[in-house]
């Protein structure tokens, strides 16, 4: 499992370490409705990332005094399993996980008709089982699908993807190696039907032009992921239909 930083992350033919082109996503596999107890759930594999999301609710909110009189409260926990990374991660929530839980919540809130369910809570749990860079984006992608799977009314699905700069070139969907060895990372979440950016972060160093290019590149990635999300959602109901017809 030990990953070594290679001498070059991109070769002279613009081929990346894992064989991808510059604006190519890792292989993505998404499935909806994977857990028995949850009201909605989904699973994603994006490259080596393996992430589960589950939704419980809308349900009565505890403690009650937190209830919002005019809308549901979305609560979100992004969490990494201790075995998901090279060095064991303590299961206690880290500062990074606290921040990500917050930005993921804020990236999904605009998609949900929270006002339909006043005084309730919608609890969202994202468990990263194996991490290889871009887990917040894959987490948002899979969480949006779990929300849809739970039948919660939404304005649109939220698709997320990162772009960044590695060895002077802009690339899509960075792996952990590329993130660590690269110059910049721009994770972004997007609702295609509303042209709404609901998550935007960046670290690294980019000029304004590069930044805008990276944003557009990530949006192109989101478009592809959005398609896969919709297919996964439909696929679930196709299997249900087949079972019924048998």
């Amino acid at each position, binding site marked *: 499992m030990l990953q070594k930083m290679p001498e070059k992350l991109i070769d002279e033919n613009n081929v990346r370490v894992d064989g991808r082109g510059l604006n190519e996503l890792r292989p993505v596999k998404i499935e909806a409705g994977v857990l028995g107890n949850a009201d909605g759930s989904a699973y994603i594999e994006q490259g080596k990332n393996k992430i589960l999301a589950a939704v419980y609710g809308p349900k009565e909110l505890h403690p009650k005094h937190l209830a919002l009189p005019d809308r549901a409260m979305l609560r979100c926990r992004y969490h990494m399993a201790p075995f998901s990374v090279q060095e064991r991660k303590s299961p206690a929530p880290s500062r990074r996980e*606290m921040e990500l839980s917050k930005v993921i919540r804020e990236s999904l809130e605009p998609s949900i008709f929270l006002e339909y369910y006043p005084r309730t809570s919608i609890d969202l749990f994202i468990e990263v089982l194996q991490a290889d860079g871009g887990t917040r984006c894959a987490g948002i992608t899979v969480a949006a699908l779990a929300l849809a799977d739970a039948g919660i009314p939404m304005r649109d699905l939220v698709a997320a993807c990162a772009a960044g700069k590695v060895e002077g070139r802009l690339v899509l969907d960075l792996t952990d190696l590329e993130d660590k060895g690269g110059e910049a990372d721009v994770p972004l979440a997007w609702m295609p039907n*509303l042209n*709404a950016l609901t998550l*935007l972060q960046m670290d690294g*160093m980019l000029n304004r032009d590069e930044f805008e290019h990276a944003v557009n590149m990530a949006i192109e990635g989101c478009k592809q992921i959005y398609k896969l999300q919709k297919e996964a959602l439909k696929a679930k109901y196709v299997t249900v239909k087949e079972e019924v017809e048998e």
Partner: protein
Amino acid sequence: MMSSTIVARVKQRQIAQLISLGKRLDGRGLTDYREVQLEMGVIGRAEGSARVRLGKTEVMVGVKIEIGEPFPDVPNEGVLTVNAELVPLASPTFEPGPPDENSIELARIVDRGIRESKAIALEELCVEPGKKVFIVFVDVYVLNHDGNLIDASAIAALAALLNTKMCKYEVKEGEIKIKPGFSPLPIRNYPIAVTFAKISDKLVVDPWLDEEQVMDARLTITLEKDGKICAVQKGGYGHFTTQQISEAAKIAQEKAQELRKHLVKS
């Protein structure tokens, strides 16, 4: 950003309506900052410190330096740690207790600006590779919350770092001996954060508290001295369009330069 101190519905509507006309309740233009006041070296016990007033928002930052172990993946570099405290005396909405997600997010945005712009020459803070390095603790202390804690904290943190004096030292047989005299902390870059609020589908710079209660979403862009973007963070429940992001990046570049001039002058 912080949960509700209540703004009357009438005032909310007034703030939003004025902004749609290109005006603001406190008389500023949409891209005007409040007055920035800066005091450096306010705490003698700290290696570096600064107090920033951004309108009525007040933030103090203290820098402490200690000897510790480096991270195993960068054995030759000093360590930067940023922490933020939303002190209960600063606002009726701040509660005592362990840092909540708001203070963690604030600290991490300030941290990202300093780290990604390589503001501190961390490689010069190594005493003994893999064993002993200097750890720079940047503690952000919010004293009065009247909106836009991010920009105020980022300015205060940078000012405090610029104000930081380190003891001179020498290493003898693995032991660190303090010598008389001080040297400044090696600073290479000047990251400045510029925060926008989206209200009535328009971008306003440096939102004060009431505007933060009305805003749909928040966007912070941090720029380093050559105008490159080194950190971005969107916050809040709403969304931005790609056009708004481009517009914000452009305005941020101008504003950062303005603020940096002010800081370097003092």
